[in-house]
């Protein structure tokens, strides 16, 4: 039942992508670069973030002023600020599409579990970066975010109070609150790079760049709004006045309307359960036991073709001493093997094979199938 629904979703995805192929052509279909698109926006965020970093002053007194200074006085400051905001939203959209696509096309489990798990971590980090990013502007919304987040964190049993104290950086909002948000915002951004390494670690030749044409198109999607609809701060925060309303960025700040609508503990539990479900999803489908590719010692000549073609870095070449002529031997790391058979296709010496679907059997089947006279089947 569950599996059938997933199959339907896969066909749906393929149909949709075929439609996109007609518009973009196969070479520029953004869905064939669904992993590279978030990457494009991420680097936009890093570069614009670096530029903003040059003028931003992380104190309560000057944060608001310095952000406005960037917007109004620095050449192209408004555009850089806009890019930083819109790229963040675009990245979230792209990441969600990426996640949904790998889920629909069944490319998230088994040998890909590490990419799925690091992906969940990346998503959570993005949310934290987004929320702290909104604090840095230090308008009324920022103040409200700090207050609501601190209150909500305190509701978590045991670790809640220390967490809230860490987030506010003390009992009350001070300059150090801003410093902490700034640190989290920038620090976790760099932590993303480590998580991305985990995300790519078992993938040979990850596709991390989009073609130039597609890149320009996607970039125009964020640079045009940032020129036409400038990003503006709200009213400056005043510590003695607690604001009541703020415009919500639904990609990053969706948790705050939840906080105002129900007890924070329920929201945290919901979030916890959602993450737990995400982490369990890869194991909902039970598979037949694994039978990774096996190398035949007698046949392997150490030509490295299988290691080069393996899409999951599952094959390594090791030095070999037991053979007079051949100096290298291919080794399969079982846990990484996807049983896809690409190594079998790359081998001209019948030295690597899938035990369950041996190339010998396929060749034998080719012979059998061709032996039957035409017309016998129908």
């Amino acid at each position, binding site marked *: 039942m569950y599996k059938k629904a997933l199959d339907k979703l*896969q*066909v749906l995805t*393929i*149909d949709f*992508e*075929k439609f996109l*192929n007609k518009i973009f052509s*196969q*070479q520029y*279909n953004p869905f*064939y670069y669904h992993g590279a698109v978030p990457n494009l926006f991420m680097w936009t965020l890093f570069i614009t973030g670096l530029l903003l970093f040059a003028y931003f002053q992380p104190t309560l007194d000057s944060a608001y002023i310095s952000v406005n200074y960037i917007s109004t006085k620095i050449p192209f400051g408004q555009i850089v600020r806009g890019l930083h905001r819109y790229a963040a939203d675009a990245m979230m959209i792209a990441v969600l599409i990426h996640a949904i696509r790998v889920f629909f*096309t*069944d*490319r998230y489990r088994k040998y890909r579990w590490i990419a799925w798990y690091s992906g969940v971590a990346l998503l959570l980090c993005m949310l934290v970066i987004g929320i702290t990013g909104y604090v840095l502007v230090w308008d009324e919304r920022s103040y409200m975010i700090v207050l609501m987040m601190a209150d909500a964190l305190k509701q978590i049993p045991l670790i809640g109070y220390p967490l809230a104290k860490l987030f506010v950086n003390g009992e009350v909002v001070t300059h150090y609150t801003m410093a902490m948000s700034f640190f989290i915002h920038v620090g976790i951004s760099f932590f993303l790079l480590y998580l991305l390494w985990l995300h790519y670690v078992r*993938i*040979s*030749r990850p596709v991390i760049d989009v073609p130039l044409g597609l890149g320009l198109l996607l970039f125009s999607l964020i640079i045009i709004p940032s020129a036409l609809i400038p990003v503006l701060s709200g009213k400056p925060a005043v510590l003695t006045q607690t604001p009541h309303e703020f415009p919500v960025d639904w990609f990053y700040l969706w948790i705050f309307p939840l906080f105002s609508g129900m007890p924070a503990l329920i929201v945290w539990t919901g979030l916890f359960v959602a993450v737990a479900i995400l982490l369990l999803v890869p194991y909902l489908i039970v598979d037949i036991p694994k039978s990774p590719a096996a190398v035949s010692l007698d046949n392997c000549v150490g030509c490295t*073709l299988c290691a080069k*073609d393996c*899409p*999951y870095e599952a094959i390594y070449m090791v030095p070999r001493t037991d053979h007079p002529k051949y100096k290298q031997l291919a080794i399969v790391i079982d846990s990484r093997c*996807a*049983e*896809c*058979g*690409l190594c*079998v*296709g*790359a*081998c*001209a010496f*019948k030295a690597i094979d*899938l035990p369950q*679907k041996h*190339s010998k059997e*396929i*060749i034998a*089947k*080719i*012979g059998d*199938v*061709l*032996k*039957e006279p*035409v*017309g*016998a*089947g*129908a």
Partner: protein
Amino acid sequence: MAETKKKILGIVCERSVDLKKHIQKNRLKDKDNVSIVELTCSGMIQPIMLEEAFKQGAEGVFVMGCQIGDCHFREGNKWCQERLLGQRPPNIKKTVDKNKVRGYWLAKCDYKKFLDKVSKFEEDLNNVNS
């Protein structure tokens, strides 16, 4: 064309065009001169398999994988395509007549397109020999 039905073999990725409904005894129901062998991924297809097929009497062989850019195993159809084009080792032996080999890159629900391509292939084969 009706009297000279060429023996055609398709080596097919099980994730590309969904042939399960259209196969009977390893042959296409719509074209009984076309035999089908399915495997995990088009990237698994060895040049030896093509050679073997011709040795066993196939008059034309086509290889089918998913749309380029959308391989379940990331790069299988790309490798297979490059091998057919002679750009990636192991190479297909020169004794194999490339006019009798085709590569199709189609998605799961492209059965109609697939039939058209196979018909075109049959026509081409008839033209090659005459």
